[in-house]
């Protein structure tokens, strides 16, 4: 019987609609039984990575070359979580993804990525070379789900002239002596007709609360990733101190407004323009300062706890293989080459050569690979770097050896939102630290409990 046109349109539409909603039907056993030792397929798709600088480009070129005839396709740009998870759910994921390490626990718990223990074994990935803290962050349920890449840690950065004029040194603002920080901040901060014109000390909230809490003796999350510790008195006290630094300078809004007006990545940055006394900051900013304001009166030290020992809160990135990856063998080989010592060394050589050509100091690269870090420092970082860059390099490597991470957990986004929102409520004057962190504790623990329960239910 001849079907009328309207019915054909409706039928076609229904078919398309059903196809469009066919999510979540991917076989659960995709994660099982991957033979990483098998020959790789002929295509590799990568999501979440960019080849924006020589450190990325050199390693990428090596990894592609090592794959031989495999057709490698890179979708440049930061990982779009929604796009990634939708691709996994629809059974058409990229073969390998580049993600933040703190996302790995959530991806692993939801079955979006597969364990890499077999990959490590089949491809002889030297996991001993990776930093323990970085590996811990990509280990969930005693299985490795990611190959660590970059590492980010904090060091103390300061304007030596401002410190000297106020009678302080960088050791006074390195975190070990809170009273000294407070005194230095108040002495350096300047007000110009009701407007803050020099920030004494920027405690870098909300992002560095984990660092301040750790120096007070507490981590925000228990080692097993199950219990939030946000309302612990040590955390409350740490937040009170860090917020108090802003309050003494007219409050966080005044500090934020002023720092937002600064040319953070340019020659007129806060240190070069004498607008900031000191702050803890991630190590990559050393390179920025070295490049845009090499003659600024800078001073560096590690960030230190009350005992004077260096301490840093490490974050970073990792390679992971999605469930349903069509070419996990090539993905594993690619991740291995990207993160192996020789690749990092080759990339660092390229950067060191570039810096030398530009008359700048090569200050090193921090990776999740301890062996690579050591060789880069020994073989490429100049041992006779001029000051203050020699101090910056020492501080960076010292902090890197003392870094801690928060453990992998299935509710990282909710946990992070809970504590960051709490800090923001305090900074915006809506709540006191104890009240804000009590609320955050409740929100975070509730999210953790639900996520762990769901994972346990799925696992059983």
């Amino acid at each position, binding site marked *: 019987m001849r079907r009328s046109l309207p019915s054909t*349109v409706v039928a076609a539409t229904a078919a398309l609609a059903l196809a469009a909603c066919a999510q979540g039907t991917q076989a659960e056993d995709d994660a099982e039984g991957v033979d990483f030792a098998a020959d790789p397929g002929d295509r590799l798709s990568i999501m979440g990575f960019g080849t924006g600088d020589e450190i990325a480009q050199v390693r990428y070129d090596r990894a592609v070359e090592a794959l031989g005839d495999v057709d490698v396709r890179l979708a440049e740009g930061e990982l779009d979580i929604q796009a990634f998870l939708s691709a996994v759910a629809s059974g058409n994921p990229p073969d390998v993804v580049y993600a933040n390490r703190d996302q790995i626990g959530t991806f692993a718990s939801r079955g979006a990525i597969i364990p890499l223990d077999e990959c490590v074994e089949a491809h002889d990935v030297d996991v001993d070379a990776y930093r323990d803290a970085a590996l811990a962050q990509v280990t969930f349920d005693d299985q490795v789900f990611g190959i660590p890449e970059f590492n980010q840690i904090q060091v103390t950065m300061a304007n030596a002239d401002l410190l000297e004029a106020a009678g302080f040194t960088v050791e006074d603002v390195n975190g070990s002596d809170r009273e000294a920080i407070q005194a230095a901040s108040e002495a350096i901060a300047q007000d110009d007709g009701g407007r803050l014109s020099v920030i004494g000390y920027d405690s870098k909230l909300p992002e560095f609360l984990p660092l301040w809490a750790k120096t007070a003796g507490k981590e925000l999350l228990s080692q097993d990733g199950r219990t939030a510790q946000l309302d612990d008195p040590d955390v409350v006290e740490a937040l009170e101190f860090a917020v108090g630094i802003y309050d003494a300078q007219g409050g966080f809004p005044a500090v934020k407004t002023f720092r937002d*007006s600064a040319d953070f990545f340019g020659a007129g940055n806060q240190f070069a323009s004498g607008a900031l006394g000191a702050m803890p900051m991630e190590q990559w900013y050393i390179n920025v300062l070295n490049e845009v304001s090499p003659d600024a009166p800078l001073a560096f030290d590690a960030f230190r706890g009350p005992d004077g020992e260096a301490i840093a809160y490490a974050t970073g990135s990792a390679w992971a293989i999605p469930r349903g990856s069509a070419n996990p063998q090539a993905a594993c080989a690619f991740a291995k080459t990207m993160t192996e010592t020789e690749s990092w060394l080759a990339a660092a050589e390229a950067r060191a050569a570039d810096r030398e050509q530009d008359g700048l100091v090569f200050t090193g690269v921090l990776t999740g690979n301890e062996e690579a870090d050591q060789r880069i420092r020994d073989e490429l970082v100049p041992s006779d770097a001029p000051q203050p860059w020699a101090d910056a390099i020492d501080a960076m490597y010292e902090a890197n050896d003392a870094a801690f991470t928060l453990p992998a957990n299935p509710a990282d986004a909710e946990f992070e939102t809970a504590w960051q929102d709490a800090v923001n409520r305090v900074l915006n004057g809506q709540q006191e630290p104890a009240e804000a962190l009590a609320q955050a504790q409740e929100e975070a623990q509730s999210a953790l409990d639900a996520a762990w329960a769901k994972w346990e239910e799925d696992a059983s």
Partner: protein
Amino acid sequence: MTSAAAAPAAAPAPPSRRRRASPSARRERNAGLRFISPWIVGFLVFTAWPILYSAYLSLTDYDVLTDPTFVGTENYERMATDPKVRLALWNTLQYTIIQVPLYVVVALALALLLNQAGRSAGFFRTAFFIPKMTPPVAVGVLLLLLFNGQYGLVNEVLGVFGIDGPSWTTDAAWIKPGLALISLWSVGSSVIILLAALRDVPAELYDAARVDGAGWWRRTRTVTLPMISGALFFVTVVNTIAAFQMFTEAYSAYFGAGNSTYSNDAALFYVIYLFREGFEQLHMGYASALAWLLFVVIMLVTAVQLVVSRRLVYYEGEQR
């Protein structure tokens, strides 16, 4: 009383059977359907189906990766007790109340000015419309620069008049006014719509009003506004809906990559909360329920506006 039954009213003629369409009419209909079928398919697959599917998702626990699990009205119950839903709704309502009248009044004022501009109107029309081409993300960044409490251009200008401007971007009380003001960046599109309506007002009405001695204000109030009330109503409704859906500028200024950790509850608009729940925390079922609540709110507000418009809006040719 007459014995004779009243003669029944003439029975209506039985409705004639609908005539079958002629073959040529059917061919025309089918051809028409073929021509619009791409749109029909697109609408059904990419609009109607997602809308219906989101209604189903709102009754599930769904994290994108695993199959949705039916949870009944749990998401709606959670919404009722979620303080952030109340906060986000309240923020959105406040913003709408500030932004819509401001936006419409400024659009109208600019359109009235342009209407007087004579030959240079074309240039100014283009000039007013160009900012509309700016991506909303850039407008969010622009907000942070222009409205910086210490060194922003807005406060610099206020300072010239001896006014100590507020902390637009960090003070909770000023965040929404700041966002409402920056929304004027794209007022050009509404100006063009109102200008077109102004150009349609018959000149003889103004002439008659002038003859009757009406001044500028009187002519505007009694001739111009009634005659363009349809366009004004359209701009108001569309802008109200847009205000309820405020997202990009506020997100990029207060929650996006440039502010990955700093945020301010005063900028937590409803769609931002929906986005964070759905796309950052992967509570897609809950986010779908949130979307349906927003749909109901917008529908109610629009319905109220439609009812009110019956008394205030005049459409040309309408008999009252």
